[in-house]
């Protein structure tokens, strides 16, 4: 049972780890705030795939599907608010450079 699970799951696990690496790299290596948001999105995609994979192998896909639905709703709200914040920063500084917001007041 475990050997079978291992052989069917390892490509997905490697894919999830690579998605995490790509997302973290995207957040670290960029100065553009919108690109950092795209990196967060890629990290979220990795977590979604992990949840679905666990549900598939644990035999409870319905439970993880409902969790994924909740997760997607939260993701959309986070992205909407984050894009609003980025637009506010752009209105204030006239650029999307992350170095502009290093010095915060308060």
């Amino acid at each position, binding site marked *: 049972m*475990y050997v079978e699970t291992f052989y069917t799951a390892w*490509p*997905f696990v490697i*894919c999830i*780890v*690579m*998605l995490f*690496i*790509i*997302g*973290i*790299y*995207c957040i*670290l*290596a*960029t*100065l*553009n705030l*919108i*690109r950092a*948001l*795209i990196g967060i*999105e*890629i990290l979220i*995609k990795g977590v*979604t*795939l992990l949840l*679905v*994979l666990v*549900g*598939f*192998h644990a*035999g*409870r*896909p*319905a*439970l993880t*599907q*409902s*969790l*994924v*639905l*909740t997760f*997607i*709703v*939260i*993701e*959309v*709200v986070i*992205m*909407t*608010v984050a*894009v*609003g*914040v980025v*637009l506010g920063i*752009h*209105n204030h500084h006239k650029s*999307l*450079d992350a170095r502009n917001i290093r010095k915060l007041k308060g």
Partner: protein
Amino acid sequence: MFINLVILAVLIAAALWTVLTRSLLRSAIGLALTSVVLAIVMFRLNSPLAAVFELSVCAGLISVLFVSSISLTQPLEQPAKLQHMKDRTGRFWYLPVIMLAVGVMLSFVKIKLTLPVLAPEIEKDVRNVLWNLRQVDLLGQIMILLAGVFGVVMLFRETRKDVR
């Protein structure tokens, strides 16, 4: 199995293209492509409802959000910024190495896996689970949606004051 490998390779390629392309608009399109491929993977992993949500919300709504925000801002990338990005690309070469090392170390740890318990009859239908078993989740979703709407309203009210 082979089809799964091909789809996962396409998923990784789409994510890499999203990160490595210079243009922000192409990056947003690459993110939508990643979402579409992820929806296919989810469909193959026996989660059709989540795949439909991923396809409609993540590939549709979030791409529209990103493209509209890119068009509202002017992300002109000067050569200096590109040079900085290139420097950073070289500086983070150790990230995959650390991940590989952690993976090898974790492979020596013996994790006790318990046998997966088969789901009871009530847990086999997504609608049942979502509406009967996970009601607190739904309440949380509604509260988060309201909080998001409130946050966006506050943000745009502030920008209006700035304009005046």
